[in-house]
């Protein structure tokens, strides 16, 4: 078939790579409009305070100020995910330092910022709760006095400062402990990690002559932004158009909208376009973090290494607003058993309010916290059993057909191959020069899993008059490469090169619905919709060609490059352009296909598991993996350096192998930052101590391992597009426990708290 290369499975360059390397890609702050105003936000200086009143007179008097909004101007319309507890600006109370209390639009940024500083808010400071322990004290100050009255999608047993309280039970743990030869117990603590996408959040809102609002956003879903702005402004979704700029990274941090309505409000009030671009510091103060967690975990096994019981108590620090806390909690609970066949499991999970930045969605979504506890404890268990940690994992590893906790079947599962492969790759790797004096090396392997399927999505494909195609979905490319993957899927079904397809940018007026770019779901979910919609188009093309040739569609085949031919007759064929022209001008009408669905996997099995108040009930399609890290510990300073990483994942089918590798390598380094140094730190007044890149440090190139070897297994999922499953998050998940286990292997010191700062490593070395 001469030069045609099937786009699926090809490492094609990103479709938008050219505009990115020449500096022409337009992120949110690269956009401007004639007459545009600049917005600035006034933020709370207190972690917890009652708002007695506002004085905006000085701000209003400033030349160039066009609009001001405070909490008194907005009707109370609480928004959020499962639990709706948040308003566009603080109303009545502030609940964390940095919370937006008022906003200004002015002719330039300097004026807007000055005006924001001139807004006087009369606060009555209240005692603040800054830790999980404080939040749960019986006499703790309560953040949300009206919690009972908030709208919620389901009961989460919310009370006091408890956002959500769930349980998940399989088997009989209490009976199982007696049969265990070895039991290990420990408490594991994880920090608030900041997403640190390179592009700070921002929005440009404008109102047209009919009063309709358009919101251009850097976001993970235009449909979410549209919903949120409509809800907060109290107008129908039809009166809000949400569009997306290029997105400079998301990682979950742009998953839920919390600043877009402010700009929309100011645009409406001023009648002018308004841009609100957060500074890095504001982004760190206002957006969200990964949930700090405390996980008490207990695991029991028989002498031969068969794990028969695990019990977990997970407590997440949700910050001042629920955001995705109920869902992150649910997912952490679903993940903490791990990819092992453990028959007796009891998990209790709670998320609590504290007077800090909200915690929410972040690559891994509760799984990194659960895995840090679970996979650290697997090595501790192996130590106590006197067993090789990889052998212990192999003994208990899930295989295809085994069930996840709750009852979902792992239709495909290459966990055993992944474990064996990383071990092999590590053993075959060239030896490094010996460590310098004072440094010790260690290696460890962990097992991980994640999901690919949840929520709803859709795609539409339309044939154009020259035989090219327009593909539209609501799936926003936040940097991971979904534009290219969707185009590859569509092109492969139609057997055309990718340049025959245009992938439309997301616009709530035009794009078919998609929930969000989140949960490692884009390739699996939206990819499925793309393939199904494209198959409809393919069928219509064949029908037209059959009419043109006066034959049955069964006698026809697509030929690479955009032609339909009669099977077995090489010369007999018609080009897509002729098919398209026929459809547009002669017969049948424009050729188009649409497919939409909501995740349709197995549900939890109520006979198998007792599930109470879990905020997710429809998700699945598991990706498995194993990760091996080699570290060097400087026993003089405590600094841990990650030298090499091998990360193996059963992705089903790599639609774009280079992109899959990029996801794996990027996740590994973000996981390394989480493991070793990243943490938002709050002082005793609830103020962030390190809200800038000068003080919150993400790994640079010299901190990152020079060798990160991605290993990809292709075991097609029967429901996935060309068999593909998700790979967006899993590579981050196991890195922290792998490093902790490798540090232990190198030095004997067991760290049960991340980040494993040099100081904590030195303390652990002194205790071991």
């Amino acid at each position, binding site marked *: 078939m001469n030069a045609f290369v099937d786009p699926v499975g090809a*490492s094609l*360059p*990103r479709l*938008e*790579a*050219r505009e*990115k*390397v*020449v*500096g*022409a*890609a*337009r*992120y949110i*702050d*690269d956009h401007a409009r004639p007459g545009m105003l600049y917005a600035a936000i006034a933020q709370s200086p207190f972690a917890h305070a009652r708002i007695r009143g506002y004085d905006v007179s000085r701000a209003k008097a400033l030349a160039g100020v066009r609009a001001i909004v405070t909490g008194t101007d907005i009707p109370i319309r609480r928004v959020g995910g499962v639990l709706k507890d948040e308003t566009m600006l603080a109303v009545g109370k502030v609940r964390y330092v940095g919370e937006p209390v008022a906003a200004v639009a002015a002719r330039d940024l*300097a004026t807007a910022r000055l005006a924001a500083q001139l807004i006087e808010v009369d606060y009555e400071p209240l005692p603040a709760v800054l830790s999980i322990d404080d939040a749960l004290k019986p006499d703790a100050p309560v953040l949300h006095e009206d919690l009972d009255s908030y709208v919620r999608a389901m009961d989460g047993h919310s009370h006091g400062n408890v956002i959500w309280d769930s349980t998940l039970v399989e088997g009989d743990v209490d009976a199982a402990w007696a049969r265990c030869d070895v039991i290990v117990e420990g408490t594991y603590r994880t920090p608030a990690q900041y*997403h*640190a*996408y*390179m*592009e*700070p959040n921002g929005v440009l809102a404008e109102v047209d002559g009919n009063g309709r609002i358009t919101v251009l956003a850097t976001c993970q879903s235009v449909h979410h932004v549209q919903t949120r702005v409509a809800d907060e402004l109290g107008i129908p979704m039809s009166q809000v158009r949400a569009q997306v700029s*290029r*997105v*400079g*990274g998301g*990682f979950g941090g742009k998953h839920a909208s919390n600043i877009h309505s402010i700009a929309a409000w100011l645009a409406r009030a001023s009648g002018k376009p308004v841009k609100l671009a957060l*500074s*890095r510091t504001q982004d760190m103060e206002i957006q969200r973090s990964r949930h700090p967690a405390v996980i008490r975990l207990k695991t029991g096994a028989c002498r031969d290494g068969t794990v028969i019981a695990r019990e977990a108590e997970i407590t997440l620090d949700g910050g001042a607003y629920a955001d995705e806390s109920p869902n992150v909690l649910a997912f952490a609970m679903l993940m903490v058993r791990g990819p092992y066949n453990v028959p007796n499991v009891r998990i209790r999970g709670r998320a609590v309010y504290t007077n800090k930045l909200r915690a929410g969605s972040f690559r891994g979504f509760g799984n990194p916290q659960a895995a840090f506890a679970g996979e650290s404890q697997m090595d501790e268990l192996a130590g106590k059993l006197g067993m090789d940690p990889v052998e212990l994992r192999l003994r208990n590893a899930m295989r295809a057909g085994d069930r996840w906790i709750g009852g979902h079947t792992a239709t495909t599962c290459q966990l055993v191959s992944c474990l064996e492969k990383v071990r092999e790759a590590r053993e075959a790797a060239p030896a490094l020069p010996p460590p310098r004096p004072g440094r010790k090396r260690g290696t460890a392997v962990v097992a991980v899993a994640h999901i690919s399927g949840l929520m709803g999505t859709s795609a539409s494909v339309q044939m154009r008059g020259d035989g090219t195609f327009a593909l539209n979905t609501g799936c926003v490319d*936040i*940097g*991971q*490469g979904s534009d290219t993957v969707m185009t590859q899927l569509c092109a492969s079904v139609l057997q055309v090169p990718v340049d025959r397809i245009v992938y439309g940018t997301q616009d709530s007026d035009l794009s078919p619905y998609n929930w969000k770019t989140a949960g490692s779901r884009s390739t699996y979910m939206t990819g499925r919709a793309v393939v199904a919609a494209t198959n409809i188009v393919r069928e219509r093309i064949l029908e037209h060609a059959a009419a043109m040739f006066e034959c049955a569609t069964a006698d026809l085949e697509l030929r690479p490059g955009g032609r339909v031919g009669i099977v077995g007759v090489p010369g007999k064929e018609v080009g897509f352009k002729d098919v398209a022209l026929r459809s547009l001008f002669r017969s049948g009408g424009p050729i188009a296909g649409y497919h939409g669905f909501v995740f349709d996997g197995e549900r939890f099995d109520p006979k198998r598991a007792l599930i109470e108040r879990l905020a997710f009930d429809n998700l699945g399609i598991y990706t498995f993996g194993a990760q091996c890290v080699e570290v060097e510990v400087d026993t003089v300073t405590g600094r841990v350096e990650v030298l090499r990483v091998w990360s193996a994942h059963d992705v089903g089918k790599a639609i774009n192998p*280079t*992109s899959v*590798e*990029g996801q*794996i*390598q*990027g*996740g*590994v*380094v*973000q996981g390394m930052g989480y493991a070793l140094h990243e943490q938002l730190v709050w002082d005793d007044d609830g103020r962030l101590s390190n809200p*800038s*890149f*000068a003080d919150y440090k*993400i790994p*640079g*190139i*010299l901190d*990152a391992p*020079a060798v*990160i070897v991605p290993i990809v297994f292709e075991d097609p999922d029967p429901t996935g597009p060309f068999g593909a499953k998700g790979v967006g998050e899993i590579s981050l998940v196991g890195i922290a426990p792998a490093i902790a286990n490798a540090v232990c292997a190198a030095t004997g010191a067991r760290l049960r708290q991340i980040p494993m700062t040099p100081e904590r490593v030195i303390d652990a070395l002194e205790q071991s």
Partner: protein
Amino acid sequence: MSDIHVHELNVNGEAHEVRFAATATLLDILRQQLGMTGAKRGCNQGVCGACTVLLDGAPVRSCLTLAANVGERQVMTVEGVQKDGMLSRVQQALLDSGAVQCGFCTPGIVIALEALLRERPMPDADEIRHALSGNLCRCSGYVKIVEAAVKAAGVAP
């Protein structure tokens, strides 16, 4: 409010007359007055490297460079890297190697690598890593960026 200065700024080989306050940084002027939004504001503290431009051939932070202090020096931004509409070898290699993900750090990476290859046409991986040590990337884990740089330099990986 600050004094307004009128200066001639030489950017990508072209002289531009610009008016700005004394507090304005080179990044402000490039982005807001010259419409050159290739250099990005990632942190405004000189840490992330997304705003890197060349000043008389040396990579500097445009967010930490006051426009008033640039003087007669030559500024080169990512917009000036292409020659006659052709991608430079650095740009082409980044594109081909899958080294571009969200792309927000990419202009700074392009500039840092252009500067490196001008100074050292055949750098090894270690020199590449040091040259990029001030350019943060949150997406890639850096591996493919180094691969691209090695490819651009024409040396075998």
